[in-house]
């Protein structure tokens, strides 16, 4: 299989995938449930994400030459593989729709209140589609180009907040008790973004330092995210629920930008870049899942991708104009139903991991067996040599 992206580019895509949905409405939604304990929810989500990354990384590293679909077909057959790909397609389509919905609400509030939805949908789909059409290699290179800009902007923004904003103590904590766990489950749809990595299986060129690069970038993303939640909760100690556009509102409360003028553009540009990349990523993954589901023998890969992309676009548009019409619908759908989809994906991940683990154990036994027989042969050889010498 052709290796289109290297480990660093892959790590940067992972870095980008951590944010966007978690920086806009989520802080407010979590705050309304558990107050300042929302910090622990995001820590919990980060731990789960990181664990899922470890499982995925183990599988990816050991299957560098086949795609995820090929891996599944090899071990569980085509029927179940297609079923899993359908689940992933549904998950990514819903994630894409949630992203567009949240991004529209955010942009409407901070950029242009009277912007029609069709205009935003058109822009979002145009960017996401072009990122998909230019394929994963171009996508990865674009991410690589924007990474330093995003990383520095985000880090500068958080540093500025820590140094200048009026931070209130967020203690006492753990007042919500077990509600923390139920909230993690309810809002699990916005986490688990590393699942996208499965669909990149076989395209990544791993090297000696790849694990260091991947771990480093993903941990950096998680640290930035947790610090952002700390800053948000500390600034809006009792009013977190009121601030639906968290990242832009945090900027407004920093005294330094207040003196220099409106610094909203910092958050707006950051979010627009993140929304575009994440939109592109979700569409890329949805499209890949779609290609694997409808794999026709007499159609070449490129043509197939264009048709499936058209198909996924149609589904996204239909979803946006039917069930994703309001913010409340969007939230209720996520909290009431989509969490079960996340459960299903966790189950898939575990299945994949155990398949790989079983394979690993089998190979290990073989290797041990081989090495044992090798030793016997050595002993025999030594015995023969000794006999010859005696004779």
């Amino acid at each position, binding site marked *: 299989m052709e290796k289109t992206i290297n480990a660093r580019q892959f790590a940067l895509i992972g870095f980008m995938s951590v944010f966007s949905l978690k920086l806009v409405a989520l802080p407010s939604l979590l705050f309304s449930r558990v107050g300042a304990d929302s910090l622990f929810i995001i820590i919990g989500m980060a731990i789960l994400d990181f664990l899922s990354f470890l499982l995925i990384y183990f599988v990816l590293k050991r299957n560098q030459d086949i795609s995820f679909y090929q891996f599944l077909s090899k071990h569980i057959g085509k029927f179940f593989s297609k079923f899993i790909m359908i689940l992933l397609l549904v998950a990514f389509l819903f994630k894409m729709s949630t992203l567009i919905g949240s991004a529209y609400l955010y942009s409407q*509030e*901070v950029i242009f209140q009277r912007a029609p939805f069709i*205009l935003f949908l*058109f822009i979002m789909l*145009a960017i996401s589609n*072009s990122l998909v*059409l230019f394929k994963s290699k171009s996508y990865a290179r674009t991410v690589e180009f924007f990474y330093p800009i995003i990383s520095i902007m985000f880090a500068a923004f958080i540093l500025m907040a820590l140094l200048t904003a*009026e931070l209130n*103590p967020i*203690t*006492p904590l753990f*007042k919500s008790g077990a509600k923390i766990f139920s909230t993690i489950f309810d809002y699990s749809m916005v986490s688990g973004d590393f699942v996208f990595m499965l669909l990149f299986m076989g395209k990544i060129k791993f090297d000696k330092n790849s694990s260091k690069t991947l771990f480093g970038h993903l941990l950096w993303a998680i640290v930035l995210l947790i610090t952002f939640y700390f800053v948000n909760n500390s600034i*809006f*100690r*009792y*009013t977190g629920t*009121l601030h*639906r*556009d968290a990242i*832009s*509102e945090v900027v*407004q*409360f920093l005294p330094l930008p*207040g003196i220099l003028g409106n610094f909203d553009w910092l958050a707006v540009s950051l979010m627009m870049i993140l929304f575009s990349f994440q939109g592109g990523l979700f569409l890329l993954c949805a499209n890949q899942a779609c290609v694997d589901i409808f794999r026709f023998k007499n159609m070449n890969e490129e043509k197939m991708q264009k048709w499936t992309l058209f198909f996924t676009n149609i589904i996204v548009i239909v979803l946006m104009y039917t069930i994703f019409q309001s913010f409340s619908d969007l939230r209720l759908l996520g909290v009431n139903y989509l969490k079960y989809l996340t459960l299903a994906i966790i189950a898939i991940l575990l299945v994949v991991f155990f398949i790989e683990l079983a394979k690993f154990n089998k190979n290990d036994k073989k290797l041990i067996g081989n090495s044992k027989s090798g030793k016997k042969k050595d002993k025999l050889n030594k015995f023969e040599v000794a006999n010859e010498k005696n004779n």
Partner: protein
Amino acid sequence: MKKIIKKIFSHPIICLLIMISIVFLPAAVVAQPESVSMLIISALAVDKNDDGIETTAIAYIPKSTQIFNENYKVISSKGETVYEAITSMGVLTGKIPALAHTNLIVVNDKLCEEGLLSSFDYLSRKYGLGSDTIIMNTSTSAKDILTSANKLSMSSGILLEEISTFNDKNVIHEKSDLEGLYNASFAPSKSLLLASIELEEEGLDPGGSSTGGSSSGDSSGEASGGTESGGETGSTKKKLSNKGTAVVLKEGKKIMDLSKDDVQNLSWAKRSDNSSVLTLQNYSDENFTNSTLTLFVPKNRVNFDAHFESQKPILNISIMPKMQIVEVNQELIDKDIYASQYKFATEKMLETVKNQIITQTKSILDKLVANNADILNIYQKFDSKDTRQFERYLNSLENRDDYLKGIEINIDVSSVID
């Protein structure tokens, strides 16, 4: 030509670009600037009267002129709710009210007494209002305050927004903005301090009509701007009066007024810079004889220690002001009192300062405790320190809201005088 068309169609991104240009570019080119259709509100007054809500705004209206002169107008409208009244303003002017640049909201007493949270619901949902939208209270009409403020800014350039920012930073030492209002109301202490601004009658103007914005300042440093009222024969000129008074809100509702002295006394219990002044009357020691000493406090640091002793909540407040002697008034002027090598801060002076600060702080804390007004966020201090024990203490009370009354407050002062 055929080749070009073929090339274009072979690159979908170029098709997309052409499509975007065809669909959106003409509309974008001919669209009028958004600012023309907007009523940009820089300050808002909300009055609650018997017939509903009246909102008044100082609004910027763009106008083409040869001279550099910003066109600010005072616009007023009524409605059942704040949203309705603000929307009526738009109907009145044919523009959409924009609140992103609103830095000040003045509210009248009646609205404060009935509760700001419910009235301000629309404003709190509005993105852009927050860190720099300060709320001020007035016992007169908020509309009149804005009318005077507009005239004052036209004539002297003094802005009410600047006065309100000054008050927050240097008088009440508290963020009394929209965010502060909600933060304080949703916090367990539920209390907030709001600065007040008043109108004072300047006297009768027999000449009839007045255009406002006359002189600036009097002995108390008040700025003035005129507004007209009265009948045909004469009109009363009113001026803005910023005396450093304030009101205390609990859950968004006004519960008590604080005089200038109360606000000044309360400032000892707050961390502040460049603000307080302490006056020692009839003070005598080896350096001064029967003097009136004015001490300026460039820095005041405060430490709170909340703890429990045999289940009784105790709050120790340590006040550490750094002071400078800025004025000495006494009959006998001796050149030695100007000498920089003298150390004027004697034991007696430090003791007098300490006693005066303790007396002043105690007097305001007693008033606040009597009204259950937790301006110093004492609830959060105990809750953070020992949640369980504080919860036990609250449960032991007949009324949980009376928690301040059972807390023993000790004040200690260690001042430094230069």
